Structure formats: structure tokens, C-alpha cells
């Protein structure tokens, strides 16, 4: 079987330079061109300046800032848009405080219990301040009620 490499090699061998070109190349002067050391050093220094990694100068780090800002913004927008954690705030302490009737479930009965406490005036403790506004009032009942009816994962639609 003939490989592509073999074919290229045969092709290369078939190439022949014209006789005039071969002769002209042979007649070129063979002595080395003198380049002063100063010119050599100047070219070398210029090359070093051109090829020096920018990270060492400190400018490279700043070039990453737009990328970092863009990436952070993308993550924030993604979190806001997709809202993965909005429906699943599971703070055990808060959950325990909200479960007023201690039945292990946050439902309308907890809101009802708080409403009854507020109505008879027995609930003025900080532990009944569900929404964290510094007061225990009807707003805390509404807060519990809203949590009780919240659709955790949304409907089937």
C-alpha cells in the first residue's frame, strides 16, 4: 500500500531546479557579511522588548478585568434568570420558628395560630416577627400565609 508520505517524497525528488539557477547560486560570494556588534546588540534588545511577556510588567493582570467583570455579570444574570434557589430557602431555624403549632409542616394553621395570638394580644415576642420588620402584626400572618401557599417547583405548565 502506498502512503501519502511516499507520494510526496517521489514528487519532491522529481523536482529539479533550472541549471541557470543552480549556477547562479554557486557563484554567490562565500565570505561572511560583517555585522558590527553594536548593531547585533541593538537588534537583540529590540527583539527582547517585543517578545517580553506582558504579565511581568503588571499590565497583563488588568487585561483580565473585563473578562472577570463579564463572567461575574453572566453568573449573576444567570442566577437571577434561572432562580434556582428562590423556591427552596431551607433555613432550619426559620422553619422551626414558622412552625408555630409544631406539627412539622408550615401551612395555613401556623398563620391561623399567629393570627389568633395577635388577636388576643399574647404574641409580642421577637420570635413571632416572621418578616423581620421589628414588629409582630398582621404582616407576619400574611408572610406565613404566603409561604404556606407558595408553589415550590411551579405548576406542570
Amino acid at each position, binding site marked *: 500500500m502506498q502512503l501519502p508520505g511516499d507520494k510526496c517524497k517521489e514528487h519532491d525528488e522529481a523536482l529539479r531546479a533550472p541549471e541557470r539557477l543552480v549556477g547562479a547560486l554557486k557563484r554567490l560570494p562565500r565570505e561572511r557579511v560583517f555585522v558590527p556588534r553594536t548593531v547585533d546588540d541593538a537588534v537583540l534588545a529590540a527583539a527582547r522588548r517585543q517578545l517580553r511577556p506582558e504579565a511581568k510588567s503588571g499590565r497583563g493582570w488588568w487585561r483580565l*478585568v*473585563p*473578562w*472577570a*467583570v*463579564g*463572567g461575574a*455579570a*453572566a453568573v449573576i*444574570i*444567570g442566577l*437571577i*434568570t434561572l432562580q434556582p434557589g428562590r423556591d427552596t430557602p431551607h433555613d432550619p431555624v426559620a422553619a422551626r420558628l414558622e412552625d408555630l*403549632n409544631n*406539627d412539622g*409542616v408550615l*401551612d*395555613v*394553621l401556623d*398563620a*391561623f*395560630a399567629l*393570627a*389568633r395570638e395577635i*388577636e388576643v394580644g399574647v404574641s409580642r415576642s421577637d420570635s413571632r416577627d416572621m418578616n423581620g420588620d421589628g414588629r409582630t402584626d398582621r404582616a407576619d400572618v*400574611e408572610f406565613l*400565609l*404566603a409561604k*404556606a*401557599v*407558595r*408553589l415550590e417547583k*411551579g*405548576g*406542570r*405548565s
Partner: protein
Amino acid sequence: MTRNPGFASFGIVAALSLLLPAGLSAQQPAAEEGRGRFAAIDLFVDSGKTPLAAYQVEFMATNGVVQIAGIEGGEAAAFKEPPAYDPKAMQRDRVVLAGFSTSKDAALPSGIVRIATVHIRVSGDRAPGFELRLHAAADSTGRRIAAKATYAERERP
């Protein structure tokens, strides 16, 4: 153009995150197109002889293309106001409803109580099916009571 690639990527991601929800909402059922019919489903809780002070139910469509269009309060004075529900339930096919009254027993209804009415929009040819689950029912002291939840589609005039 590629001087600040981070800002460019930020712009792309921001545009995508704005377009994505729009695209998803564009995939809502065909009810948006104007076809379909409206129906009203009355929800009842039968508390027997015990005055009903609080309830929580979950209503959902089990068949057909159904979108919840509105929630109405019940018949008895204690539950005349629309119940608590998650606004996200609108345009979906599932909702959790909760309501309570701190009134005295004498002012609370008993027996079969219409607690709420769910207005829906039905699309497509398939007949809709529904399910109603009772999460909780309680008397005026907040104690859980045995009760039964039922529903009935209101007849069109």
C-alpha cells in the same frame, strides 16, 4: 472590536438571558391564541358539624390544557374574601389555596362550605380533569379536624 472581550461576552450573555425567558413564554399553550373556553370550578370543604375556621387545599388539572385565570372567594361571610394563593399559579394548572377566619364559632360555617371558586381557561379538544387535595382544615381553636374536599364545575348560564 475585540479590545474588551469581557464586555462583549457580558453583552451576549445579557441579551441571551433576556431572550430566553421570552422564548420560553412564547411556548405557552395555545390558549394565548384565543381558542378555548372559560369555566368556573367551585371548591367545597365539608367539615361536618364542626364550624370551619381554616382550610388549605391544592387544586390541579390532571388532564387537558388548563390555565388558571382567576380565584374568587367563597360563599360564607367568613370566607368571602379571595383566599391566599401564589400569584405564580396564574396561567398555570396548579394552585394552593388557604384561608381562615378568627370569628367565633357562631359566625363560622359548617357542613359543605364553598370556600372558593377557581376560574380556568380550557384549550384543546381533551376534556379537562381535576384533582382537589385537602392539606388542612381546622376549627376555631386551631385544632385539625376531619374534613373532605370536593369540587364541581359550575354550570354555564
